[in-house]
């Protein structure tokens, strides 16, 4: 009896093992070839589409969904994936769970992370592409010459948000046009007893902007191509130098005293109150300011300019709320319906969408609403001649921000930050099978 039991147990275990096997449950269906794009108003009664969104993007599609449901009879459900959003989505997709559409950062590194060629629908001949402003059409969303993401709002730009009143009170009237005058202004402000820069190392993620804006010129010169090919490393002078400069500025006392414990919320409040003159940040920071003040107050107080070593070149970094991807779910009807929703979103529904979101229009035929704050218009204007960030151009997105926060806390030196970032980058590149690693 006992032996029989043991045999049964062994058999059960072996059977279960065989069933699991060594296959990736996230593997998508392999449908290829050109796809058709249904008319925006084709009837979709009885079809339910699911959109995955993050906590800060789950209300973005509201106006589009309302219009689309009325037009087509489809039902669209938004499912909020808790933060950290990207990790949650990747984990779900890896275990075989997929929505029809999802908000997703349209950069090469993040599209790679979703295994785009296997899991995502190509959007190459989408009907809305010609409506984009020409300079924005191909700015992002493309991996290995295939378009996988539909850009719906202006990508974020890393640059300097400043308090106009603090600048005026200290006699700064001219636009800061290069790195040296930017730092000189900061030093002058410090001499006048004003905190020049505000950084939020407790929340960590904003720390990388300071390094990335310093790399704008190098990025325009192909820095990330060389890093992607393992011809240049984070530990080489360009990137490590930028990290050291950042550390130097902090040690010089140009930042807020509570840099180690300050959070994203603190940063917004401090800039708005004029406790600090400037913050290097991205669009979501302005979103935070909008939750604290109305457009009139923001127009009066907050300005934006891009900065790079050579001048005013911005560094763009599309994030999850800027774009959507459509998944290969294996159900041809729902895949077509997902494409139809995107066509509507960037087609007949786009005007309502930019109005409902009070955001800058990406399309020549759709006007930007009149009450979009000035700073956001400045961000959007800087986009045309901006260069890609690490996230946009590098094949992998290492945790540079965590290592930089460690540096600010004092547990890593700039050299160790560069080493840790390089080691992680190599690990990721190797996993992708990138050449040269």
């Amino acid at each position, binding site marked *: 009896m006992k032996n029989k039991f043991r045999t049964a147990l062994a058999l059960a275990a072996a059977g279960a*093992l065989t069933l699991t096997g060594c296959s990736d449950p996230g593997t998508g269906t392999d449908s290829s070839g050109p796809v058709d794009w249904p008319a925006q108003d084709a009837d979709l009664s009885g079809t339910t589409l699911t959109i995955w969104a993050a906590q800060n993007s789950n209300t973005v599609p509201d106006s589009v969904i309302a219009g689309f449901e009325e037009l087509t009879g489809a039902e669209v459900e938004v499912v909020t994936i808790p933060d950290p959003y990207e990790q949650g989505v990747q984990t779900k997709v890896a275990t075989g769970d997929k929505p029809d559409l999802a908000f997703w950062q349209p950069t090469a590194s993040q599209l*790679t992370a979703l295994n785009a060629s296997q899991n995502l629908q190509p959007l190459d001949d989408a009907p809305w592409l010609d409506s984009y402003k020409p300079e924005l059409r191909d700015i992002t969303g493309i991996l290995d010459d295939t378009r996988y993401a539909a850009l719906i709002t202006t990508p974020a730009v890393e640059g300097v948000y400043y308090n106009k009143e603090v600048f005026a009170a200290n006699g700064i009237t001219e636009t800061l046009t290069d790195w040296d005058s930017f730092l000189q202004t900061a030093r002058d402000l410090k001499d006048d007893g004003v905190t020049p820069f505000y950084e939020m190392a407790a929340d960590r993620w904003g720390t990388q902007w300071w390094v990335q804006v310093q790399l704008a010129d190098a990025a325009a010169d192909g820095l990330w191509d060389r890093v992607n090919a393992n011809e240049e490393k984070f530990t080489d002078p360009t990137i490590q130098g930028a990290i050291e400069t950042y550390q130097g500025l902090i040690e010089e006392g140009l930042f807020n005293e509570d840099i180690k414990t300050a959070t994203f919320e603190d940063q917004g409040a401090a800039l708005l109150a004029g406790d600090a003159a400037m913050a290097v940040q991205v669009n979501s920071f302005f979103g935070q300011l909008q939750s604290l003040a109305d457009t009139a107050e923001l127009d009066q107080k907050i300005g934006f300019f891009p900065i790079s070593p050579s001048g005013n070149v911005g560094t763009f970094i599309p994030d999850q709320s800027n774009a959507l991807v459509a998944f290969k779910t294996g159900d041809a009807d729902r895949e077509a319906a997902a494409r139809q929703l995107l066509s509507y979103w960037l087609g007949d529904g786009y005007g309502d969408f930019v109005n409902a979101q009070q955001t800058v229009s990406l399309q020549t035929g759709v006007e930007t609403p009149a009450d979009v704050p000035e700073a956001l218009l400045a961000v959007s204007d800087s986009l045309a001649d901006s260069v890609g960030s690490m996230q946009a151009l590098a094949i992998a997105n290492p945790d540079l921000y965590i290592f930089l926060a460690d540096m600010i806390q004092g547990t890593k030196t700039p050299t160790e930050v560069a080493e840790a970032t390089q080691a992680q980058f190599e690990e990721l590149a190797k996993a992708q099978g990138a050449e040269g690693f």
Partner: protein
Amino acid sequence: MTANITLSKGTARRRSDHPLWFLIPALVILVVFFFVPTLSNFVYAFTDWSSFKSAINFAGIDNFTSLFSNGTLLNALKVTLVYAVLVAIFQNLFGLALALLLERDTRVNRAVRVAFFIPVIMSALAVGYIFQALLKPDGALNGIIGALFGTEVAIPWLGSTTWTIVVVAVVHAWKWMGLSMLIYLAGLKTIDEDVLEAARLDGANRWTMFRSIRFPLLAPAVTFNVATALLGSMNGFDIVQATTEGGPGGTTELLNIFIFRTFGQGLFAQATTMSLVLFLTVTILAFPVIRFLRKREDVL
């Protein structure tokens, strides 16, 4: 003879009452949700499984060599061990103190026991977020201290690269101390009243009674509490993720947080390798710890 017959009859009846195949449902669940994941853990650690491609290839001990050559894993292991030891100490101190305070079965004590047990059934993430809010530089704790001393206090409880791990361990211990209390209370109840009375007649004071009689007799409860607190907190994640996310400066980055971060990067095989390392560490640690604690029970 008669006795034998009854016995064998009894066994036979028990056999037919409880046939072995009744175990199958439980066994299936055990195999599917426990054995298979554990075995896959061993298998996937030796592959190159990632989110970047669909093929999974055998990669030998590649993951192990790259992990051990990079200092982060060893640092995370060290942090995890320090955290586990701190949690084991605090949770048992708090639990034992509560059990001794609330030992008598009065109406008030019963109510207070329930109050202290509530954190155990609360969501660990909720506990973490509540404490994160309390411990902020402008949080309630500093507010209370400030009001008591009449000055502005802005201690960054979660911002010290040296002490934050202790603070987070205290939060973890606070959440679970109700469970330790319950087990210590049960242990105290099993102590024979005659032994205590004899001690009292011999003139032992409360401290002597505790040190020489009650604490030694609590040995089984200590074994259970220390072992579960130590080994359980090696698998800690939720509270630390909610309070510090591994910061400041990586000083509270438990192995599980590191695994979560690696998994989030799409490096599934590396994350699996780390969890295998954690599994092995817990196993290796469990045997001597439990053996030592069981040895203490020999006095009984």
